[in-house]
């Protein structure tokens, strides 16, 4: 065992260099008296920090208000179309953040379909509203983040043991009492987990505040604006402040999560769904369900429709008068436009492969046999893999840009800013938590006796890995890899800080098209991104 120590040490150091070191560099750079003074004394900074906090909390509340009742509806009641609707309801998950934002813009924005329809209907001279500010951001957040609450709550409900509910009833508890005294307490870990996920996502959210924020700044947009202004030390201080908020939020929400023992107890069969008997109620439930599905699908459909609108053909009409495939033809035939697509593909592929490889190495070292689970390197490696998840993408983007902007080989810093390497490196760092989680979970599910069985049959460590471990990890690798690939493919938040002309990704091209009012091309890119994401996710979820 002793001679194997170099492997965990090497992996720990590599991960620390990728994940922790850039953060420390930023923290060091933020320790600048003038910058800290500027941060503390400027009102705008405090306003942005406060906005980030309350937007995140409000996003959690809104997402829970939508997602939890939906989960109860779909898990507890039986009505026509339940299965189909239940799968449609997760659709916002295939919209990369920026694509979701532009879909909302086309749909509910000042010149979107809904505004135009209302304007035409009421004969108004101008658009009835502007989609801007905190309200617009929260709308997008609620739409895209309720999915976490929905999926977590459903999973928690499905894990319930019917015997527990029957026990409560046998002890004289009515439906309400069973809900408040048994079901909700059992759901606490699931709800806290979803709350944590939404809070972190909302805190790190960039696309919606960037597009809809206007003068309303949150921390992520504030950091990028400060950096563009050239006030680098101040941007560092802001980055550290955002990171601290994220860590505090993480700590607070982790505490409320409680032990998972409560759910681990439930090993029986899940309660059966209650069919809705009254015909009127059934019809109402089905109608409400389909209406909901329509609302959920509208952004996707809008995007598809706008992608068919040729440049300059849609001015004041409620519905676009001309539809054609010209935008798609332009994307694929103009090298200038095809390039971002290819860039995103190679960068997502490379970063995903690297993240999967690192996760596999970590899994082999900490996830395998019980002995490895006790090793001293388990905690540092797991923590380093998870750290990028705890910090907003903007933080990492700034951290990497800072760390790799100087040539100091002795400090393990090289100039990567301005090269095509830095952005995929950032994707890789951001992908580590998702591949790491999937692969470690996969490793833990492996029966250690299988590797021993292979050894007793004469297979060495490498043969065991190739013939037993890898094939059995395939589902976990596919799941983690597909999520990582989709995240990298649709990334906007790190890209906008780190991209160069030579590796500009799809999201940057979408933004550029939007600025040039080439809405159709932007939408076409959005549809391509959406389709690719859905296809890759479907592939990854296949058994």
């Amino acid at each position, binding site marked *: 065992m002793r001679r194997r120590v170099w492997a965990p040490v090497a992996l720990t150091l590599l991960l620390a260099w990728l994940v922790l070191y850039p953060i420390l560099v930023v923290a060091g750079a933020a320790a600048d008296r003038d910058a800290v003074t500027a941060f503390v004394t400027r009102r705008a900074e405090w306003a942005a920090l406060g906005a980030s906090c309350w937007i995140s909390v409000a996003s959690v509340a809104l997402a829970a208000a939508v997602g939890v009742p939906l989960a109860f509806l779909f898990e507890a009641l039986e009505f026509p179309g339940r299965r189909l609707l239940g799968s449609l309801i997760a659709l916002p998950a295939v919209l990369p953040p920026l694509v979701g934002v532009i879909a909302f813009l086309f749909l509910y924005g000042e010149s979107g379909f809904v505004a135009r329809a209302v304007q035409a209907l009421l004969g108004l001279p101008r658009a009835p509203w502007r989609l801007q500010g905190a309200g617009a951001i929260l709308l997008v957040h609620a739409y895209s983040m309720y999915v976490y609450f929905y999926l977590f709550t459903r999973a928690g409900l499905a894990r319930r043991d019917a015997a527990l509910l029957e026990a409560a009833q046998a002890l004289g508890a009515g439906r309400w009492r069973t809900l408040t005294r048994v079901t909700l307490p059992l759901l606490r870990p699931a709800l806290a987990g979803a709350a944590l996920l939404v809070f972190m996502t909302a805190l790190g959210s960039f696309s919606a505040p960037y597009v809809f924020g206007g003068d309303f700044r949150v921390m992520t947009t504030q950091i990028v604006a400060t950096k563009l202004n050239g006030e680098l030390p101040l941007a560092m201080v802001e980055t550290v402040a955002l990171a601290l908020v994220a860590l505090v939020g993480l700590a607070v929400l982790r505490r409320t999560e409680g032990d998972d023992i409560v759910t681990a107890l439930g090993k029986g069969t899940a309660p059966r769904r209650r069919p809705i008997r009254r015909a009127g109620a059934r019809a109402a439930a089905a109608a409400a369900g389909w209406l909901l599905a329509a609302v959920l699908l509208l952004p996707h459909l809008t995007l598809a429709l706008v992608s068919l609108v040729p440049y300059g053909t849609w001015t004041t009409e409620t519905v676009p008068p001309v539809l054609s495939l010209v935008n798609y033809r332009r994307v694929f035939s103009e090298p200038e436009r095809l390039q971002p697509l290819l860039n995103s593909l190679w960068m997502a592929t490379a970063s995903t492969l690297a993240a999967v490889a690192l996760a596999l190495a970590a899994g082999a070292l900490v996830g395998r046999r019980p002995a490895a689970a006790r090793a001293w390197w388990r905690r540092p490696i797991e923590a380093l893999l998870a750290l990028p998840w705890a910090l907003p993408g903007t933080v990492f983007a700034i951290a990497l840009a800072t760390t790799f902007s100087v040539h100091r080989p002795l400090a393990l810093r090289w100039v990567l800013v301005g090269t095509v390497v830095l952005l995929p490196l950032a994707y890789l760092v951001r992908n580590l938590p998702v591949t790491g989680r999937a692969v470690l979970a996969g490793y833990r599910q492996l*029966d250690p*006796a*299988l590797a*021993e*069985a*292979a*050894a*007793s*049959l*004469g*297979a*060495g460590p490498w043969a065991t890995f190739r*013939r*037993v471990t890898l*094939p*059995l990890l395939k589902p976990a690798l596919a799941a983690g890899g597909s999520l990582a690939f989709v995240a990298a493919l649709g990334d906007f938040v790190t890209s906008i800080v780190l991209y160069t002309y030579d590796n500009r990704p799809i999201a940057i091209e979408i933004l550029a098209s939007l600025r040039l009012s080439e809405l159709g091309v932007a939408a076409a890119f959005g549809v391509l991104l959406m389709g690719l994401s859905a296809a890759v996710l479907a592939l990854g979820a296949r058994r």
Partner: protein
Amino acid sequence: MTGFVTLEGVRKVWSPAVAVGPLGFAVARGETLALLGPSGSGKTTVLRLLAGFEAPDAGRILVAGDDVTAVPPARRRFGMVFQHYALFPHLDVGENVAFGLRGPRAAVARKVAEVLALVDLAGFERRRVHELSGGQQQRVALARALAPEPRVLLLDEPLSNLDPALRERTRRELRALIRRIGITTVFVTHEQEEAFDLGDRVAVLHEGRLEQVGTAEELYERPANLFVATFVGRANVVRGPTARALGAGEGQVAVIRPERLRFAPAGVPAVVRERRYAGAAAFYQVETAGGDRLEVLAAPDAARVGASVHVAAERVLTFAEERA
């Protein structure tokens, strides 16, 4: 006895409070040795030390005179059947059995068919593992372990995952198969009946120590100490006046098998408190005047509940009182 597999002073320390050994025993070529003990006695650790999954902190393991202590499991040529079989779920039956085989495809296929026939699963090559019953899975695991023609076969609780009805039949088949191949076998069990039935000899383990190695008869009739006497077979353990009345010396513990007690005209006076009918005979719970309870195996009509009787012993095992 010259050992084919020999453990010499083998010791494995898990923590200051939990350790196995130092212990030593030898298994003759072609012999089947059962490692018997309660859970936590270290029997599985001994098996894993033999297989090479654990490295001993002290001592040597020899096979045919060669020191294999430092040889990794992959090159030890021990076949192992795991408690939950550890069949590879992504491979079919034939691929599982072929896992440890090398060489030309046709030769491998021939060998696979041969061992599958040996365990009565001829033609099962293309079946999925999870489609098999528990008993079939157990036989696939056995076939897989035997296919590379190992020097020693190791079995970890080979029958514990089978339901009782299947267990006895499988045990018979397993015994016949091991005899027919003549392979040196070490297996772990916590069931005395299994150990007695399958093992040529039985090694009794307790809290990491080897208490006794011997044939089933030796263990039952001449247990080396109080633990073996009480762990192997049913036993009445009595101390004090009742023990002395039954023939034990001062400060000694008396152990008497129920079938070695009988109702007699003279002996220790007692009252029958319970009768448990077991077909050909019955177990009687009797209570002496001093409050000691004894279990007597006698004819079904030997006594009634509530009757006053006298109990005599035919054979009493005596042991010095063990320090707690």
